[in-house]
């Protein structure tokens, strides 16, 4: 059950490039968190911007520490990056429909870009069988949590657009390779990253007669399913063949097969 909790900042430090790692003491939320869920954060000091910001829960531990990996992109994350140890911020969470964990005999294949690595870390950690992480980015410096995924251990394969590390290709190219390579095995696919990447991934899965779980990122307002700001088109049994589903409540994780691709 989601709650509101004052998260106390324990650490707020640079992780890599413009990515930062935020650790918050929020035992109530930690206890309830499932992989793929998010918190909706009110950033104190952002007086003239009133909406909360959603961040995936990257990790939780039994001491009640919740980890978020965020990228500084605008006014909110800018102010967040100046918040000091000891200060607090209000969190609503855990919110959203989580990933379903892979079965014992399934190999999880995670495809991630951007903060997607953070959003799928807890999934990888909690998966009983260890699997493969396909991580994509523009350039080496945007590849985050590579060590952490290797340590789980997950097999890490990387793709960069500029070829600065890993294969010089799109991460979805790695996905197609994996599908060919491991076609005999029982794979479970998961994805989180930029919209374009996820749509490409969904289509690849469907073309191959597969399914998977995709975590979508969308502008949010309430975060709890009340306002209908965050909708995406999903297939539906009506005249139009689609309806708008709320990313914050019915998602952020959707089955690739349930998404309505235009």
């Amino acid at each position, binding site marked *: 059950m989601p709650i509101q909790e004052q998260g106390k900042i324990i650490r707020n430090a640079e992780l890599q490039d413009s990515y930062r790692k935020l650790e918050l003491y929020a035992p109530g939320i930690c206890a309830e968190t499932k992989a793929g869920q998010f918190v909706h954060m009110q950033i104190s000091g952002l007086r003239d911007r*009133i909406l*909360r910001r959603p961040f995936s829960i990257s990790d939780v531990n039994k001491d009640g520490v919740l980890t978020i990996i965020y990228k500084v992109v605008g006014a909110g994350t800018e102010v967040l990056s100046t918040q000091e140890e000891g200060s607090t911020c209000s969190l609503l969470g855990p919110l959203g429909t989580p990933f379903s964990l892979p079965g014992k005999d399934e190999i999880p294949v995670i495809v991630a870009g951007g903060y997607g690595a953070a959003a799928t870390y807890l999934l990888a950690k909690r998966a009983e069988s260890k699997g493969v992480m396909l991580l994509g980015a523009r350039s080496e410096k945007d590849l985050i949590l590579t060590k952490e995924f290797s340590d789980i251990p997950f097999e890490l394969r990387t793709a960069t657009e500029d070829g600065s590390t890993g294969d010089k290709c799109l991460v979805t190219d790695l996905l197609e390779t994996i599908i060919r390579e491991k076609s005999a095995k029982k794979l479970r696919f998961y994805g989180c990253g930029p919209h374009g990447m996820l749509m490409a991934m969904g289509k690849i899965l469907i073309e191959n007669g597969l399914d998977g779980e995709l975590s979508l990122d969308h502008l949010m*307002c*309430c975060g*709890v399913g*009340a*306002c209908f*700001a965050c*909708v995406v088109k999903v297939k539906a049994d009506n005249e139009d063949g689609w309806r708008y589903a709320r990313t914050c409540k019915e998602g952020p994780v959707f089955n690739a097969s349930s998404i309505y691709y235009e």
Partner: protein
Amino acid sequence: MIDISVDLGKFKLKNPVMTASGTFGYGKEYADFFPLEKLGAIVVKGICEKPSHGNPTPRIAEVTSGMLNAIGLQGPGVEKFLHDEDYMPFLKKVNTAVIVNIWGKTVEEYERVAKRLDEEKEGITALEINISCPNIKEGGIAFGTDLKLASRVVSGVRKATTLPLITKLSPNVSSIPDFAKAVRDAGTDVISLINTIPGMAIDIETRKPKIANIRGGLSGPAIKPIALRMVYEAAGAVDIPVIGMGGITTAEDAIEFFLAGASAIAVGTAIFADPFAPLNIIDGIKKYMKRKSYSCLMDFIGKVNIDKK
């Protein structure tokens, strides 16, 4: 003893703090966070006749001290609303007033929705007629900015139901008193205002409007002074109760609206920032009344001090 119950003519509320339509879903979405019974009333998201998709995305944009939205009234339609477990059946179990916000593309649709709700009115405290949504192509604000159309909608709905009627006015007019009087004459029991104010924002990199629908309705603290002025004008123009809303975030904000003449208030956008805002506002009102030795809301509703010179 401090009494914060409020009499809105045909119905009473245990306290004067309601949720604004469209910002609290159908109640259930917030039930995990606090007992919904604590609210004075729950006003649900606008209901029309058939299920409706609403507008394309992006539907919201954050702006300075507020937000734009063009949700476009996505909703289940009146039948599903009446019978699907997530909506009325759930709300019937909540021990507080339930107000159903309705809209239509034509006067007749308003009437039909009101009639259906009237037929199965158990658990419904009142209807709020939304003639002021800026985000739909047909109906909505077009009704709310034309005195004759506004009257026609209200008198049509009046004939379709015996439920108490609240009419929600548009801020997009030169004279609020004229509209307040027109809808009163057409038979509304209560007036509520303001709905969002049409606004716009443009992404200067993509050069696209930040809202797919081009315009969106502005809400939040940014509009509070405008809303307060309009509530003052409406309350001064008619004798029926007025429900005030627009940017209310704190108890102090709410008290300003009471002083301006609102008998009850609704909290909207503030809920997105803090779901507990309505409860904190109820507490704050009580504290203010205690400090000022007021025993009931009538001690300060409409009591703004105007120097008569």
